């Protein structure tokens, strides 16, 4: 009995110590995610994104750390006022992304991140990049939907893309609205666990509202 107890305690101790590192990384990720999510101005976003990058550099084999680093840079790049800085930023994001693309090919969120990065590249110079990156994004959407047909972020990104595409080129609010509405119906199913990316709801709600307002007019 005593012996059994020792074994159990020892095993637990090992498990706890093994987990404690993962836990501390996750704790850092949760803190940084909260900071990023609630950031109101550019320097706060940049600071939180830098924090994600440091966490990823410390944990190069942990997919989630690389995921948030790449994701935060992509989001940040949309807000970066200096157009010339966008591509070098996204080069850095690609470095993190290429690591996780090799780690796990069966995760729909990784494909969604691929699409987000491609959309970010496209938005640097939409006129001349539409051809190349439009196709790359579509490839990632298809891949994500194959793995999870109910990923709200796919519909949010597709809808956003269409919203900004002129009507004549096959876009416009009419085309975007059903996709954004579908995304809105799927977002409530998101888990709030840091291991399951769940960004995009607030932005989708806003985009859907803009879209509906435009259609009313």
């Amino acid at each position, binding site marked *: 009995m005593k012996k059994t107890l020792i074994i159990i305690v020892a095993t637990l101790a090992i498990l706890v110590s093994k987990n404690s590192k993962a836990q501390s990384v996750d704790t850092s990720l949760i803190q940084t995610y909260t900071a990023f999510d609630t950031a109101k101005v550019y320097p706060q976003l940049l600071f939180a994104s830098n924090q994600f990058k440091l966490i990823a550099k410390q944990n190069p084999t942990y997919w989630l750390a690389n995921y948030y680093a790449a994701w935060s840079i992509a989001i940040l790049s949309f807000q970066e006022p200096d157009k010339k800085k966008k591509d070098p930023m996204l080069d850095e994001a690609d470095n993190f992304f290429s690591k996780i693309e090799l780690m796990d090919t069966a995760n729909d969120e990784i494909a969604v991140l691929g699409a987000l990065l491609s959309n970010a590249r496209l938005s640097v110079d939409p006129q001349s990049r539409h051809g190349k990156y439009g196709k790359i994004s579509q490839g990632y959407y298809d891949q994500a939907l194959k793995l999870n047909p109910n990923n709200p972020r796919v519909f949010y990104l597709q809808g956003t893309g269409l919203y900004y595409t002129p009507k004549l*080129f096959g876009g416009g609010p009419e085309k975007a609205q059903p996709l954004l509405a579908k995304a809105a119906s799927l977002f409530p199913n998101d888990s709030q666990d840091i291991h399951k990316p769940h960004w995009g709801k607030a932005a989708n709600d806003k985009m859907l509202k803009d879209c509906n307002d435009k259609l009313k007019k």
Partner: protein
Amino acid sequence: MKLIKKLQLLALAIPITLLSLPANAQMVIKGKVSEAKGKPVPFATVYVKNTISGALTDTLGRYTIKVNKKENITLIATAIGFDTASYNLVPDTGKSFIVNLTLGTNSSSLDQVTIMAGSMEANNDRKVAVLTTLDIYTTAGAAGDVVGAIQTLPGVEKVADQTGLFVRGGDASESAAIVDGLVVQDPFFSPVPGVAQRSRFGPYEFKGISFSSGGYSARYGQALSGILDLSTNDLPEATTFNANVNMAGVGLSFSKLWDHSALEGGVNYTNTQPFYGITKTNLDFFQPPAGVGGNLRYVWTNKAGDILKLTANYNQYKSGIDVVNPNQPDTTLAFKLQNSYGTASLYYKHLFNERTFLTVATSYTQNGDSVNWGGEIFDKQDKRTAGRIELDHEISDKVFAYAGFELQSYSEWQQFDSVDISFKETILAGYLEAEWKPAKWIAIKPGVRYEYSQLLGKSDVAPRVSAAIRVGKYGQVSLAYGMFYQDPSDKYLLFGDTKTNFQEATHYIANYQYMQNDRTFRVEGYYKSYNDLIREIVPEGVPYDPNPYRPFFWPVDNSGYGYAKGVDVFWRDKKSINDFDYWISYSYIDTKRLYANYIAEAQPDFVANNDLNIVTKYFFEKPGMNVSLTYNYASGRPYYNPLNPTFLGDRTIPYQDLALSISYLFRVKKLFGVFYLGIDNLTNNKNILGYNYSDNGDVRYPIEPALYRSLFAGIFLSLTPFKKDEL
């Protein structure tokens, strides 16, 4: 901008430090991050290596980090556009430390210096391109022809009555068109006396267009003046089906896209009857050009980035025009032409790793012309086999090098009357070139090319070198020097005199370019010397014959020579007015040469001293319409007047042309369409290209272009939506 100001104020007020930290045994590191010249770097990241303790600098470059005390600490500073800086700190007993860090400008990302002397690029990927491929298609007056748009760039003459690309005082035979690294045989439709023909390059085939008006890379040779270097598309964007109906025929095309491969193809029927039917022409097109053609293309790629392209094209057409009789300028002769053209090519690129790749390309082309000129029958056939193998390797971050071999084997056969002549030439070339960036602000590219001609039995070694230096934040100076060798043109090879040597040109080019925020200014000066040009030994007393289509030539030697010097200026502004884009190009050239059958050193008849192009484009978001206006002015060109003692001493009136093009996008259910309309010479300006003189020189007859004002319209339909960049 307002937001940025606010952000900066906020950052100034509260330098942000780490989110949360345990409070035991801490030390504080403070300092400033600045550029090499001392200017503070705002929003730089400073962190302690192997930890997640970091901070962001404020607008004055200041940072503060609180960190658990350790024996030694490596502090790292990074910012976009800069190299990373680090500092090893061995803390003493104190609690706070000051560490200032200096960031060097990054050589591999922002503001990289690029060698530009002599070349203009239309490319969608590279940041340095002056134009995008879209610009080529939406330029009025270009008529959807790649070469038509190139003619609006500085250094290129638009010659309305001769076929080819005329670059900085060089004639059409002195420039080459290259597709995927291979020289194109007959890049233009077969020449018709007095009527410039368009190039065979369709508007949507290329992802990159690079035009060099001199000083080009050791990769290429056999062009004294310049090259047009085209890269074909990779995989198409989508599976689709297109139809094109216009005043010159109908075309159908498709593309089928799989995961890693695609098949594309098309057929077309050309009949220019509707176009010539409504246009008032100066020459009688009794048989407007008409024909059929088809093309097929297979593209394969894999995840590693290897790519294979297989292409086949076939086209045949016939035409009939009454052209001026060169011997009796007051009369005309019927010129009937039948042409068939077929080409097949293979291109393969293999990536060994991120730094090394191999390219292999080969092509075969066969072209046949049958001409009936006033009852005289000329039959002509020419062939070309081209091959290239090249290895590219990035030796380090600072050095990129490539080496390759090129083979060109071409032949021509011609028969008229009882004369049956032919030649076959094989040119072997090897080259080595490297681009070295010893520092952030300088790039040097030395190269050398060796060529051997089987027909001439001669070889040459052509050194090339170019360099670029950054001046200021947005400007740079580029320089280029090179020697260029070329065979005698085909017509001289055909007449059997192969005792000659290569012709030679030496280029010196200096270029300044300023590029900021969608505004580009460039000015380029050049000097070229021509040596060993092919010159006909015209017997004493024989008068000069200005007819470029003479069927016979005198024996030749390499005693020709010449020079060209000039200035090209280019200004483009996409920024000042929303949706409005314009560029202005101006060229001044001073050139003279003694070559061909010239009787004295003179400015050639295809060169205008001053050339101005103004290209404007406006995009109306609603209703989705692109409108472009292009104005071209060229000062008078020389023409031969037998009564003037100065050879080629007369000048025509200036050439002026205003062209308009409109493309309107529309949508009918699932079908997407573009309606396009182009009007050339809107003002119906009566341009005169030169004069023909009667035998005794008493009467002169103006040489008019084939058309004054003309109108062209058509509709392009697609089953998939248009991308804005296909307009």
